Structure formats: C-alpha cells, structure tokens
C-alpha cells in the first residue's frame, strides 16, 4: 500500500485509515450537512464517501482532497436525483430553534437553492475556497462557478424579504 512515498503493511494501512476517518469525520459531517440541507442525509452522504475512499485507499495520494470531492459530488448527485425532496424542503423546516431568526431564515432559504448553487456558496463561504478551487472540486469551468455563485447569492438575497 502506498501513502506518499512510504510503503506500509495492510495492518498499518488499516490503522492509517482509522486515523484518517476519526480525523476527518466531524468536518465531513458538517460539510455534508450544509451541502445536503439535512444533518441526517448529510451523515449518510459522508458515510458513503468514506466507503469510497476506503475502497480506493491504496491508490490515493491525497485522500482528504479526494474525500471532499466525493462528498461534494455525492451531495450534488443526491439533490439532482431527489428533486422532490427540494419540494419537501420548501414545506419542512429543519429543527433549528437554537438559531437567531436571521440565521434560521437564511439557512431555510439556502436549503432550497439548487444543489450546484448551494455547493458553490458552501465551498466559497464555509470552506473558504477560491473560485478556481471550487471549479476544480466541482469539475466545472470557472465561468460557470462564478455564474452559480453570483446567481445563488442573488436568489438567496432576494428570497430574504
């Protein structure tokens, strides 16, 4: 098994993955929560992403970067396949009584943006990625990312009346 330039045994690899999992699980749960608009769905997405990483563990030089791409892609894919859920999200508010009203309202509107718009906003303003980095993660041209970001923020702002 190859990790960087170090050859390690399967036992060591298993230990490495366990450490990787423990280290990155909280951050991926949070990211998937934001991308999916639901903590429960986000947990499933994050879990599936770890399974993908585990299956390819021996081939990955940058597993953390790969994990983030998989989480983003799975979240976007899930949203595209579950358009009905977006309808559902319009009528069901995630339990969020702990938030200040303006945060709660912003979050509810963020949840019903398109998956691509929300992903660009989350990656830009939560992950603090540059537009070029977002384009790489989402496999989209920079112009498209700029458009998604601009349009998503405009729609979000307009919805907060």
């Amino acid at each position, binding site marked *: 098994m190859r990790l960087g330039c170090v050859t390690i045994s399967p036992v060591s690899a298993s230990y490495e993955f366990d450490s990787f999992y423990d280290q990155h699980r909280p951050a991926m749960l*949070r990211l998937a929560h934001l991308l999916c608009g639901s903590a429960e769905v986000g947990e499933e997405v994050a879990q599936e992403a770890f399974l993908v990483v585990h299956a390819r563990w021996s081939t990955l030089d940058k597993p953390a970067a790969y994990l983030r791409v998989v989480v983003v892609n799975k979240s976007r894919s899930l949203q595209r396949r579950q358009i009905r859920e977006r309808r559902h999200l319009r009528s069901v508010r995630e339990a969020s009584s*702990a938030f200040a009203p303006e945060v709660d309202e912003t979050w509810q509107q963020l949840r019903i943006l398109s998956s691509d718009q929300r992903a660009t906003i989350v990656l830009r303003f939560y992950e603090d990625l540059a537009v070029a980095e977002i384009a790489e993660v989402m496999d989209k041209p920079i112009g498209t990312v700029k458009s998604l970001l601009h349009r998503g923020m405009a729609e979000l702002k307009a919805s907060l009346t």
Partner: protein
Amino acid sequence: MKSELSDSAFEQLVRRTLTEVAASTPVDGPRVETASRSTLSHRVMSVAAAAMLLAGGVGIAYAVSRQTDPPSTADEPVRESRPALVDFSQTLVPAVLPDGYVVYTGAVTDGRVERNPGVEWTFGRQDEQGDVLPAIRLTIAPPEGGFCPPGEGEPIAVGDYPATLCTPDSNDRQLPFSTASWVTNGGVDLNVVADSTVDPSELVAFAAALDSETIGSAVTRDLVYDAELAAQQTPPGWELLADDASLSTYGAREVDFIVGPETKTDGSLDYIQVRTWTSAPPSAVYAIGFPLAATPTEVHGQPALLADREPDNQFLFWVEADGTIVSVQAVGEPAASIVEFAEALITADRQSFDDFVADAVDSPIRLPRDEPANTPGVDD
C-alpha cells in the same frame, strides 16, 4: 429587509449562517463501525448488492478502474456518484453478420461521445410529479446544415431576429420535435430543439429569452462557458441539465463494435458501428447529440429515429429498454439496410460479446484489463 443589506454585510450573514449550522451538526452521535476494514468491506459489498438490485441485478459487470486522486471528474463516474456499469444483459451483437462482413473492432469504452465544438446544452423543467425532465436542447452549427430542411417550417421572429420554426405539423416529415433556428448578428447559427412536451410558443419564448449575441460572440471566441451566463437567462422554471455531450457524466457505460466488408474493392470505407450505452438515465438521451432531423421508424418494437438524408451516412437511434440507448451508424454502402441490421441485433452476455469480438481485425480489444468478466464488483 435582508435584501437591503450591502453585499459585504450579506456575505457576513451567509458566513455566519453556515458556520452556526455546521456547528450544530451532531458529530458525537452513534457512528457506523467503519473503523474495521472487514466491516467496511462488508458494507462496500452491501452497497454493491444494493446497486445490483437497483440496476436489475442480472449480468452486471462492474468496470473497475484504478483512480489517482484527486479524481478527474470529467470522465469518472464519481461525478454522478454512480458506479460505472456495463450491463451486458442489454448489450447487443448481430445474430449473423452480413455476407462478407467481419468484425473490425469492439470495445468497452469510457462512455464519452464526440463533443461538438461549441454549445450543446440541455434544459429541463419540473413536470407535475416534480421530476425535472430534459425537454429543450440549445446547439450551434448543427450537422446536416440545419434542423429544418429548406422549404420547410414557417418564418417567425425570435426577439429581433428573423427565424424559422419547424413543428411536427409544419414539415413534410412530421418530425417529433419543434425547432427554432436563427442567426446572430455575428453570423452564428443558433438552434433550440424541443420535444413534444413543449408547446412551440413556449419554445419561441425560451429562444427569445436567450442573449443570442453573447452566446454567439462567446462561441466565436471559443469561450463557450462564458456564454452559459447568457443561457441561464431562461424563462422561469427552466434549468440547465447538461452542458456537454458526455454520457459518462451520467454514469453510463458504452460498448461498441464496428463491422465491415472483409474485402474493400474500391478503397472506400464502408462500415457499420453499433454503440450501446447501458446504465443510462433517461436524461442521457439528450447527451448523445443524435441527428434530430430524422424520420420515425421502429426497431425491436421500440420507437426509433432514422437520419438518412445523406445516403452514405445513415444514423439510427432508439431506446432499447430502460437505461439502454442504442445507436447504429452506417457509412458508405453497407451490405444491409441499417434498419434490417438493427432488427437482427440480439442481446449478448459478456461471454457472447467477448466471443464476438475475439477475432476482430483491429486488435487489441480495448477492454479494461481489470474488468471482471461476468463478475459483479464495485467501483464506487
């Protein structure tokens, strides 16, 4: 009230919202035991089994590709989070080759199709069930000189542009599509093509909402993606579903083969190519870029479209079954009519396909080395 915020204040609100929501994510709750490699392997296989059930469960071979990271999502199924599946229960081969024909080549490819230079975008809108279905395609410089043959269609206006509208009722071929075509001031052909769910008046409204000059000028500068900014000025309810012609982005896998005469008498290139895409969602149909100016016909009892305007380059296309799209292209003067050839195709399992291409003239067959034959596996 928030809409009156300055841009910077609004960004701060968004950052604060994301940070607070993320902080509320339960991360200390019960966790699935993923720390054990054996447990993980078991779960991976469970996912594979579930995928098999979803895909039909019979005769599925999973293409196992080694991937470096970070993944190149442009041609990897992970973009759609779908395993790369080759469903050989839906793959077709000829029962009998035409007289004098041999197999030139056969392959499992990555599912990509040739991308037209420029715009090839697919738009959809929600139906009554809430599903977003593709219904309109925007393209430039179509093959065959235009979707609407000369002398057919009716003159209309798309915004300030003179245009031609073809509907099933306004052309001799009764095309199953409506098209509107116009030329920008910069000389770029733009075409929107809609299926039968879109009323021609809706199609014209859609076309008029586009920023034609921006799209056209961007195309001529080869900055097609900047044109997407303009394309997103679509009427309410429409969404951009696909911005290229790559079936791999839909998780589809392609099996193709080419057959042709063993002896070429005059140096011309005659051949028939059959491409089968499996594990393709319905929206993938719109990524193929098949000729839309085609005549309806039938193959295997399924509706099919035949583009035969050029006698030496025919194209036949149909949906064989849910998730399976087939195209047959006949170039030159094939020994069999393209429809007859298509009708004679039969379903092949993996072994049958391997046997069929084993003696291909143009070896090697491009089958991935690590793809298991008739053995379910998992790639994702």
